[in-house]
């Protein structure tokens, strides 16, 4: 009951000076709004990265051709395939920390089904690719070792390709023509969404690497592959796998003082983990900067509460003369301060969410507002009220009844 009455008194006191109450709240509104927007931006960014890590597959190393030197001529990285099937096999058998290796070649081609056609990416690979990328089949079957060994003209469609060529029709078992070569669709891949770079991962056709090289993309350098994805046995041995692969490839490619490294090894998982970390740090920093405005808002509250206590010294004196205890007066002013910050906090939250929404729409930046962030903002604004309201409230409560009554 006491709290209810304190609320009533506080509401009345705030209503008396509406403009002043609003301006005081403005500091908290801006502070909480800014914190919400910043946290939403940061959380959105790190969620995107987390999703990318999940869609990429875990504990991955990527090996792509580097620049090759032949007779004093250095070609640009990737122009000459320098990775061979033998490299793939060697890594598979000789590197204990490696779980599996997925060689791949890439190109693009036109696919035709009936009167529909679609220009898409062709990925030649082995069954390992699906495992490494943790990519499931939505319909039909996976790629098999036989598909690769016999260079069968079977293919898997990415979700976007299936959608564009077949619409509602079931593609499994149908024949599509890729560069005029007929292929049987044996399966459809599950959708993966956007890649870390922002392109559509589902816009591709997977086929046996052998078939791709012989029938579709052609291969002027026999026995080579375009790139390979290597999956380490676990997160703990990821770095070790990286060392093993480097050592083996250096040895096999005779990398030394006279020969440059002709391949590039990237630790994909580490790159994403680092960028996720930096997204989190950025989010924290932005939040910290935004909370400075919250502190400034809190000081504004304290200032106005002190003014209010001074203005109402006589009222405090009357209340004390009538029997209000220190506790009653303290509660009254504390309630007022907390009410100010809570109102400000709620308005700030609404504006912050609106701001985050606008940013994600206008700038196409992902934002994420978690219930925890809302709860934290709510508690934080109440906390600001208690913290910055306490001193003025205590000043009021400690007044001497007679001094307060005599105050002009």
């Amino acid at each position, binding site marked *: 009951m006491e709290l209810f009455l304190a609320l009533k008194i506080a509401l009345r006191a705030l209503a008396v000076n509406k403009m002043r109450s609003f301006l005081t709240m403005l500091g908290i509104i801006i502070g909480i709004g800014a914190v919400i927007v910043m946290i939403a931006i940061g959380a959105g960014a790190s969620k995107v990265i987390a999703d990318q890590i999940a869609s990429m597959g875990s504990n991955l190393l990527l090996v792509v051709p580097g620049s090759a030197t032949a007779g004093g001529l250095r070609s640009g990285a990737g122009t000459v395939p320098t990775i061979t099937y033998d490299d793939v096999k060697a890594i598979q058998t000789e590197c204990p920390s490696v779980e599996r290796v997925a060689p791949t070649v890439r190109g693009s081609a036109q696919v035709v089904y009936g009167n529909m056609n679609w220009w898409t990416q062709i990925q030649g690979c082995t069954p390992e690719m699906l495992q490494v990328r943790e990519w499931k089949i939505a319909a039909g079957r996976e790629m098999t070792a036989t598909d690769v060994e016999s260079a069968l003209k079977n293919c898997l469609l990415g979700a976007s390709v299936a959608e564009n060529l077949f619409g509602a029709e079931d593609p499994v078992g149908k024949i599509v023509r890729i560069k005029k070569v007929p292929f049987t669709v044996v399966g459809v891949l599950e959708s993966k969404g956007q890649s870390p770079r922002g392109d559509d991962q589902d816009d591709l056709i997977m086929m046996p690497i052998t078939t791709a090289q012989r029938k579709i993309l052609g291969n002027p350098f026999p026995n080579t592959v375009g790139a390979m994805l290597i999956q380490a046995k676990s997160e703990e041995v990821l770095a070790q796998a990286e060392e093993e692969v480097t050592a083996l490839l250096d040895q096999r490619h005779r990398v030394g003082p006279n020969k440059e490294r002709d391949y590039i090894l990237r630790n994909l998982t580490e790159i994403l983990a680092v960028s996720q970390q930096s997204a989190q740090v950025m989010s924290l920093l932005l939040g910290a900067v935004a909370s400075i405005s919250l502190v400034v808002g809190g000081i504004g509250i304290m200032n106005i509460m002190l003014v209010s206590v001074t203005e109402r010294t006589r009222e405090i004196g009357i*209340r004390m003369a009538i*029997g209000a205890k220190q506790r009653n007066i303290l509660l009254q002013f504390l309630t007022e301060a907390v009410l100010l910050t809570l109102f400000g906090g709620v308005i700030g939250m609404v504006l912050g969410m609106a701001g985050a929404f606008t940013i994600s729409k206008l700038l196409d930046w992902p934002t994420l507002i978690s219930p925890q962030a809302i709860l934290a903002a709510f508690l934080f604004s109440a906390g600001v009220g208690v913290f910055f309201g306490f001193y003025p409230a205590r000043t009021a409560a400690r007044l001497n009844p007679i001094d307060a009554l005599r105050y002009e």
Partner: protein
Amino acid sequence: MACVVSLRDITKSYRMGQELVEALRGITMEVEAGDFVAIMGSSGSGKSTCMHILGCLDTPTTGSYALEGVNVERLSKNQLAEVRNKKLGFVFQGFNLLTRTTARENVELPLIYAGVPTRERHQKALAALEMVGLARRAEHYSNQLSGGQQQRVAIARALAGDPTLILADEPTGNLDSKTSEEIMEVFEKLHAQGITIIMVTHEADVAAHARRVLTFKDGQIISDRRRQDGGWAGPGGQ
């Protein structure tokens, strides 16, 4: 009759820079239950200072004050607040009502701090307003009332908590003589109900309502007269 108030050698001094202002210089007095006491005296003689001490709003420099046998000096701030709330009712010269608050809400204030439940509070507040003849103005805001009405609300507020002692410091000081008379009728009524009243006044006709008149001079009591049917008696009479 039992003693409601008992002051022993109360002094109060204020330090103003180098100077020591002795507002009270040894006040000793007793007030019996149900008495109606007027305090008179020239300006600056220490009447208000004494009332503030009686009202537990201020503490004496030396001396002791027993309220219904309880020594007030020993009480903590919280206990003093409780005494003010339960045993005392204060009426000020300047009314001291809360603004933007209705008459009823003003009267309810001491009951709120006493923790009286809402319904009972309403009833008691209305009863107190009835007593001062303002029941019909209960929902008026304090600033919508005339000075006399405001003072009656203030008396109702002092009454609401059923105090043993009502202290009034120049309750008619801001009012014209006709309104003063109305206020004094209210005090007479309270006196008739057996409530102990101590009242400061400068006006002889206001003091005439009291049963006993104390006169202050330079922080001391110089006369103490009791009205007996038709006349005044006691030491130091004029």
